């Protein structure tokens, strides 16, 4: 007779207790409206009690007959699938739940057999062994089913929302932009608003209806201590899926060495890709993966965050490494906008990152990204400073031909017209440098026109930069020997600056006061030009003896000649000069015309006797027409224009 120990009552009295308990359980089992969980508990209890009674009732090996029967039944159910080519979960929900029930049964049998600590019993040992082999077979099968399910549904659930970085602003700001006219520049550089709107966006990485199946497999595997295999399989498939998404975004996985040496055009593209990838990977895919992990593994302690970390680690660290390489690099002025993009994106996402990696294991990820954010902030400041230095130190060896708008003015004004987009970030980052700049800015903004926007840190820095530009332009103007050309040059450039401020988002930051002052400046140069060029010429036509009669022939001839020579000199020089802005050109022509033509007409009018003389080289109409040739930018000689006028 076997000696039952611990869990098994040995006395007859206990038999009654067991029998009574069994009876109650059976009675409860017939109750309607039992919840599934409760029913399961009762079934388990029933099985245990059956086992106990059958053991007690028996002598020796006979006691395990029922157990063996049950084992045989469940063995059939499990083994039959081994030779089948079809997947259980593909076959149908009934097959799946039957299989899971069978596995449950095996686990129950094992628990019960273990509960009987009858070490000497051969039969028990044999049955236990059979059951645990069967369990391993089932677990192995469940692992395969799981992987199959995840892989099959992974492919079907690719979100059609696969963004392309080409929709983002991908224009590289370099010298070539300078040659574009204003409209196309604006268009080329304008932001795609879609990229901004991309906040969190959780997708179903695995279709909703599959989740319960995965969970049911998880439950069974974890209950049988095969949770590790479940995680291993789950992580494997999900990690691969995430890395495929990452690959689609075409991140080059470049080494730090390569990135530090990369030329600007390619680097700008890579930085764009990073910004985009961060939004998609962190904002969409990682949030979704985390949700999936929580859904599937939420009940099993800290397993869900462990699995998520393993799935996400490689990808997120790849993104981190790129960011660090950029923060390390030399911060040239042209990088500023891309750095701002990177900074803003990370600043937006850092909260998500904190939430995703909130557990201990992920704390280093959080720390590193916070460090990176600081690093990028420093990079932005450095690039901004470098920009300022570049503006003031930009040197020229030769005067700018034609006196038109200097490329430096175009570069600077076009570049800074994009800063208002980043206003809040720049204000934040430039705040501590505000105090140094405020003192440099020579035009304090006060009075009724002053507002928050003109006094914010970014506005102060912008005015400091344009102030630098002005100083530089003054230096450059001195390279022109001709004083008139110096004034034309400055007039052109200052006018350009004002137009740029008026016609862009810079306006509120510079304010009306600034515009007024700078309008006055270029108008001053306009007047200076006129004085320098035409005063002496007009002087030649002046009436030396007002009130007297007309001049003598020789005096008249002399004056005419003097005027012609001077006029032709100006014509020869100044037709090659350039005033790009049509309005400004027109203004100057009108103003010049008024002065010069009027003086000439008056002069001729006062000496009507000599009007038909051949010494008059040019008629008033000639002079008028010739003046129109000025500032066209192409040098002309008088002979050419003469011929043209005659035909």
């Amino acid at each position: 007779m076997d000696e039952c120990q611990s869990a098994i009552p040995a006395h007859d009295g206990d038999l009654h207790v067991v029998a009574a308990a069994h009876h109650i359980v059976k009675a409860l089992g017939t109750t309607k409206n039992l919840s599934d969980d409760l029913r399961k508990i009762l079934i388990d209890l029933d099985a245990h009690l059956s086992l106990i009674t059958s053991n007690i009732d028996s002598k020796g090996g006979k006691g395990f007959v029922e157990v063996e029967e049950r084992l045989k039944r469940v063995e059939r159910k499990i083994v039959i699938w081994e030779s089948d080519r079809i997947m259980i979960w593909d076959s149908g929900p009934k097959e799946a739940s039957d299989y899971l029930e069978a596995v449950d049964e095996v686990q129950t049998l094992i628990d019960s057999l273990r509960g009987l600590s009858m070490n000497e019993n051969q039969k028990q040992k044999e049955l236990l062994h059979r059951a645990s082999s069967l369990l391993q077979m089932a677990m192995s099968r469940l692992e395969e089913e799981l992987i199959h399910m995840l892989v099959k549904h992974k492919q079907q659930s690719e979100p059609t929302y696969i963004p392309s970085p080409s929709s983002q602003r991908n224009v590289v700001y370099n010298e070539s932009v300078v040659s574009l006219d204003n409209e196309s520049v604006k268009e080329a550089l304008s932001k795609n608003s879609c990229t901004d709107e991309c906040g969190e966006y959780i997708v179903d990485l695995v279709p909703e209806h599959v989740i319960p199946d995965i969970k049911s497999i998880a439950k069974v595997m974890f209950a049988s201590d095969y949770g590790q295999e479940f995680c291993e399989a789950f992580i494997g498939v999900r990690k691969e899926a995430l890395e495929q998404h990452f690959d689609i975004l075409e991140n080059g996985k470049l080494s730090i060495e390569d990135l530090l040496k990369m030329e600007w055009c390619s680097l700008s593209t890579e930085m764009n890709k990073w910004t985009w990838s961060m939004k998609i990977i962190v904002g969409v895919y990682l949030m979704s993966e985390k949700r999936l992990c929580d859904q599937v593994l939420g009940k099993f302690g800290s397993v869900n965050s462990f699995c998520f970390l393993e799935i996400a680690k490689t990808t997120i660290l790849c993104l981190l490494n790129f960011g660090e390489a950029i923060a390390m690099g030399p911060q040239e002025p042209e990088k500023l906008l891309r750095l701002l993009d990177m900074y803003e994106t990370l600043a937006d996402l850092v909260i998500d990152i904190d939430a995703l990696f909130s557990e201990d294991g992920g704390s280093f990820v959080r720390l590193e990204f916070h460090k990176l954010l600081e690093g990028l902030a420093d990079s932005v400041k450095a690039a901004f400073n470098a920009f300022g230095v570049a503006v003031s130190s930009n040197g020229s060896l030769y005067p700018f031909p034609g006196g038109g708008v200097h490329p430096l003015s175009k570069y600077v004004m076009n570049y800074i017209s994009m800063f208002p987009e980043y206003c809040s970030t720049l204000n934040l980052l430039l705040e501590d440098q505000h105090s140094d700049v405020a003192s440099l800015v020579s035009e304090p903004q006060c009075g009724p026109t002053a507002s928050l926007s003109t006094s914010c840190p970014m506005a102060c820095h912008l005015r400091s930069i344009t102030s630098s530009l002005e100083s530089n332009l003054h230096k450059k103007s001195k390279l022109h020997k001709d004083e008139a050309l110096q004034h034309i040059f400055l007039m052109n450039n200052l006018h350009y600056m004002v137009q740029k401020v008026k016609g862009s988002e810079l306006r509120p930051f510079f304010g009306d006061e600034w515009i007024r002052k700078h309008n006055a400046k270029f108008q001053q140069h306009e007047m200076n030009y006129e004085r320098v060029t035409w005063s002496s010429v007009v002087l030649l036509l002046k009436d030396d003896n007002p009130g007297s009669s007309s001049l003598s022939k020789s005096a008249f001839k002399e004056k005419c000649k003097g005027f012609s020579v001077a006029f032709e000199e100006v014509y020869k020089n100044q037709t090659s000069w350039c005033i790009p802005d049509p309005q400004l050109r027109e203004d100057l022509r009108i103003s010049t015309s008024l002065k010069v033509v009027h003086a000439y007409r008056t002069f001729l009018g006062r000496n009507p006797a000599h009007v038909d003389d051949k010494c008059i080289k040019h008629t008033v109409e000639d002079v008028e027409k010739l003046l129109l040739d000025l500032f066209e930018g192409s040098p002309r000689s008088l002979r050419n224009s003469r011929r043209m006028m005659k035909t």
Partner: protein
Amino acid sequence: MDTQEQELEDIELFQKHVSDRFTELSSPPEDDALLSVSWLHRLLDVFLCCEAEFEAILIMDRDPSQLSKPPFDRLIPEFIERAVKALDICNAVANGVDSVRHCQKLSEIVISALDQNPLGDGHAKRAKKALLMLLSAMNLDDKEGTHVKATERSWSFGRRGVNKEQIAGHFRSLSWQVAKNWSSAKQIQSMMYNLVAPRGAEASGLPSPIYTMNVIMIFVMWALVAAIPCQERNGLPTHFPVPKQLNWAHSLIGLQEKIADEWKKKEKKGMSGLLDELQKMEKLAQSLIDFTDSFHFPGDAEKVKEAAANVSELKEIFGRMDQGLTPLQMHIREVFHRIVRSRTEFLDVLEKGSAPVV
């Protein structure tokens, strides 16, 4: 001159410290075998200490313009370039530690499977499956482009393969964080390029600690690459061109030669990392897989006992990995950040010291 004497003293002290630290590393206590996780921690500490002293000597209280003149106008930028290469290695190795952690995870399954009494066929099968994955993970061909994808492996023959046990492939695709054509071996080689010991007058001046620090940096990176699997280690140089006469270098050279010997031995057999724990794990896995192959319930008592001993050893290794691997990654990150800072410092010095731009 006072400052010059002081400088010479500082340099001598620095090199003495270097020598001492590497001597200590050469004779590790018993449970701290060469290239074990804890030994690597100590190696990284040595690097951080040496680097701190080096920076102090070169930068502190020094007129920056001194470092912009020859030969420093060549030596410093070269050092900075090597530092950048070291950064890429740090990242690759930190990534590689993840693959070692994967091995650790797989060994956990093996332990769960075999730590049963009585051991059954089911347990043995479970262990064998995990062991196969473990061995394939350790001997993964670390050539670029050989990702083993979960989707390719088992499902290329329809649903079930001919022999289920053979399907125990490496379910986790081992994706490297680094660029496709990046090679850790080549990186080390290029770090060694142009590394020439200072001669004559330079040998007693500042060029000497610069050379020393270069050698230390290269050695540390080299040892990490040898220990931890990372992309493309084929062709890892085994010879360091460091002259033996240098007193401070003796222990370092000794260590280097020991590790190089091990490397050469293992290279022929195909490579997991030289990491002590990995090596031991591999041996245990091999003998355990033989055991599980031949096991039939209830099994030979002797063999079962032997297997139990192996499992117990495996548990110990698992424990060491569990404790030390994640901190190792953190430690490598610390080294990474230190090198970044150091590079920035030296770049600043060069900028300050060079002629101001008009």
